[in-house]
């Protein structure tokens, strides 16, 4: 049985909610059952925001996850909150531009990516979360790129389709950076 | 001319009960103006030929059973909510003619929010607001429109502004709202004023039929029983005291405004 449980976390406005929706939607296209749920309300306005994503080949029970096997942390408070909760053998993507901490746990796969730098290189600061998502998929490859690309397109509103190319590039740049890092670690 | 034969003798019919009223005799107290108000509304509806597309909203108060007297579709609704119910029905049936019939407690106390917002949205409904300055149905308690000094079962020493505020003036309150098409205050204290009231009610329905906006006629009425007056004194009280506190007149007339807007502006000299 496949049971993927992710938490993506950061500041409100970083695009955290959207990258969660993208991978949940892409997972659905690939044929899985998927669920996405935000931390909603005042705590998601301006402060820290997070969302849960569950992907499974069976009926999904709880949409909330308390022991995620995949986490993206886009800011420092999120690292403090979610890194200790992670299930063994989980995957942790750390945005090094805003997160000074590094995991000391040896039961996790940790990838440290400067998502804001990648976003600026590609052309727009808003792309940081998508770069983080690319790094995440490189490390936990459950959902395939063809569906992820469709998910990125789906998440862009009609009046922002001009941003599609940049988003796809940021996704793949994030992915490449993670792959390079994983390759290095394997050596 | 219509004729009718009674006990072998043929008579000409000079006047009859309006079609828009049922055969049920009014059950209101002797001297109360509800019956006459019902009758002139029914006459207006007959004259406008809208009986079969009228939907009435009965509120809570003495007129809670008004649906027994008006002969068209009717719904009896919670206290104060008539204009919200009318809103929902009118939005679903724009070709129906919606009338609410409400008292002062219903419209100006518990239903104040519904009243203001139906008017402000310019709902195409017609509101007949009967103001007799007291809660009749529940036995003579103070109304939002009770005059200062008036004794009621809940203002036994007389209404005191410092404790409970002043009689609320709904026509004055609603008429500045852009959604209002026609707002008038009339009185039922004599035949001349009853005819004026009928003309105002007709205009209020026309505002709805011509898609102008919200319309309300505030009808000053009496409650001789709970005012503890003879019917004659009660009528006198309406004429002298009620109209003094609640000045009669047209507070909003969309046709007059349209006319004024069309007239060429005089150059300032």
């Amino acid at each position, binding site marked *: 049985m496949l049971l993927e449980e992710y938490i993506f976390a950061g500041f409100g406005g970083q695009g955290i909610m959207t990258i969660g929706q993208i991978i949940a939607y892409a997972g659905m296209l690939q044929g899985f059952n998927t669920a996405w749920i935000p931390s909603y309300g005042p705590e998601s306005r301006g402060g820290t925001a997070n969302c849960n994503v569950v992907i499974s080949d069976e009926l999904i029970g709880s949409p909330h996850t*308390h022991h995620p096997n995949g986490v993206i942390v886009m800011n420092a408070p999120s690292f403090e909150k979610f890194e200790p909760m992670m299930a063994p053998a989980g995957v942790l993507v750390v945005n090094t531009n805003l997160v000074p901490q590094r995991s000391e746990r040896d039961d996790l796969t940790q990838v440290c990516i400067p998502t804001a730098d990648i976003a600026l290189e590609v052309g727009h600061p808003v792309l940081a979360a998508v770069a983080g998502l690319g790094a995440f998929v490189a490390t936990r490859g459950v959902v395939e790129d063809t569906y992820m690309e469709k998910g990125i397109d789906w998440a862009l509103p009609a009046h922002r389709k001009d941003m599609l190319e940049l988003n796809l590039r940021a996704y793949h740049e994030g992915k490449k950076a993670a792959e390079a890092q994983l390759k290095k670690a394997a050596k | 001319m219509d004729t009718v034969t009674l006990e072998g003798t043929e008579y000409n019919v000079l006047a009859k009960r309006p079609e828009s009223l049922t055969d049920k005799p009014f059950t209101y107290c002797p001297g109360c103006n509800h019956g006459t108000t019902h009758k002139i509304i029914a006459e207006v509806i007959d004259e406008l030929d809208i009986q079969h*597309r009228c939907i009435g909203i009965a509120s809570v108060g003495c007129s809670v059973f008004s649906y027994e007297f008006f002969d068209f579709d009717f719904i009896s609704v919670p206290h104060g909510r008539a204009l*919200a119910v009318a809103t929902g029905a009118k939005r679903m049936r724009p*070709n129906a003619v919606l009338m609410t019939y409400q008292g002062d407690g219903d419209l100006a106390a518990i239903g104040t*929010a519904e009243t203001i917002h139906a008017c402000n949205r310019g709902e195409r409904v017609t509101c007949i607001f009967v103001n007799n300055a007291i809660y009749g149905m529940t036995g003579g308690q103070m109304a939002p429109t009770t005059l200062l000094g008036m004794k009621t079962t809940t203002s036994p020493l007389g209404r005191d502004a410092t404790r409970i505020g002043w009689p609320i003036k709904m026509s004055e309150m609603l008429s500045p709202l852009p959604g209002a098409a026609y707002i008038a205050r009339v009185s039922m204290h004599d035949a001349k004023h009853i005819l004026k009231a009928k003309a105002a009610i007709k205009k209020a329905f026309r505002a709805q039929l011509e898609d102008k906006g919200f319309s309300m006629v505030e009808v000053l009425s009496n409650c001789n029983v709970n005012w503890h007056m003879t019917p004659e004194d009660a009528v006198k009280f309406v004429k002298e005291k009620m109209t003094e506190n609640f000045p009669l007149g047209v507070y909003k007339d969309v046709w007059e405004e349209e006319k004024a807007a069309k007239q060429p502006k005089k150059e300032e000299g």
Partner: protein
Amino acid sequence: MSDDRVFMKGNHAACEGAYRAGCKAYFGYPITPQNEVTEYMSAHIWEHGGTFIQSESEIAAINMIMGASAAGARAMTSSSSPGISLKQEGLSYIAMMELPMVVMNVVRCGPGLGNIAPHQGDYFQATKGGGHGDYRLITLAPNSVQEMAQYVYDAFNLADKWRNPAMVLTDGTIGQMMEPVDYTSMPWMEPPDKSEWQLDEFQDGRKRHVLTSIWLDPADMAVAHEKLIAKYDKLKKEEVRYSEYRTDDAELLVVAIGSPSRVTHSAIRILRQEGLKVGLLRPITVWPFPYSAIREYADSKHVKAILVPEMNWGQMIEDVKLAVLDKKPLHFVPKHGGLTFTPEDLTEPIRAILENPDNPDTLWRVS
């Protein structure tokens, strides 16, 4: 897997279910966590020939719905707990006048302002009438985004079939989450003909229609009551719905609704791997409640105990108790404050109950 799946929020899917059922009126007032319903309705109901008003209050909204329903339209409002309290007056009149309509409660934590986290504190209100007087709402309890759409759709059909208000009772988790939805089980439909009783502009040549909830003479009111009660009795026989998961051999039966029923699902999968026989009975209609189905399990040889997890102080468990009586030990696991269950919150007490069916830690007593 069907290719017709779309990925949506529960609150949005509820609107799509309403459109497909022919809903032409939505009147509502903003409140978290159901704002997405009001927002989505304001943007899209026009595409389906309907009307939206952001009302001045929840009270006004329910009364506007009363008017739209009386005029023959399929009409819906929604809110979250504090707003649903305000709608109770209108629901009482609507029930007595037998007006079909749908109201959805995306329950948050109370009493008072409480907070906006998911909760189940409004179960009594939803299933025992809610406003003044003796009446019931047909109440459906979805636990997924798919069911949010489906049960709003079904609620419209049930409301019209029985001329009774219907409620969709869910919690913030189900309203806020996104999941795939397949609408093929919800074909677009036109509202049924209600010309026999609706208020309209076609009165020429027919008797007038009057809708009222007042009968001053107690003898007359008794007749009106009896008519309602006869309807409710029939509803109880014909419309009870529930689902079962691995109950055939269950030694411990969990009865749960809403998001706790999903956590139960996760817990059962974990416990079954350990060889523990646990099953879930999930009421879909919480009124009428599936008393008989639960009673059968209470009577069965294989069930040793029954557990009810709720995000409240114990409400649905009173209905379960009416079904179980003293036939089997009944256990309660609560969650307070708007916190949500984890599977561990359930697996630990379940293991303990299976070891000792009378385990005092979770045993629920009437007093």
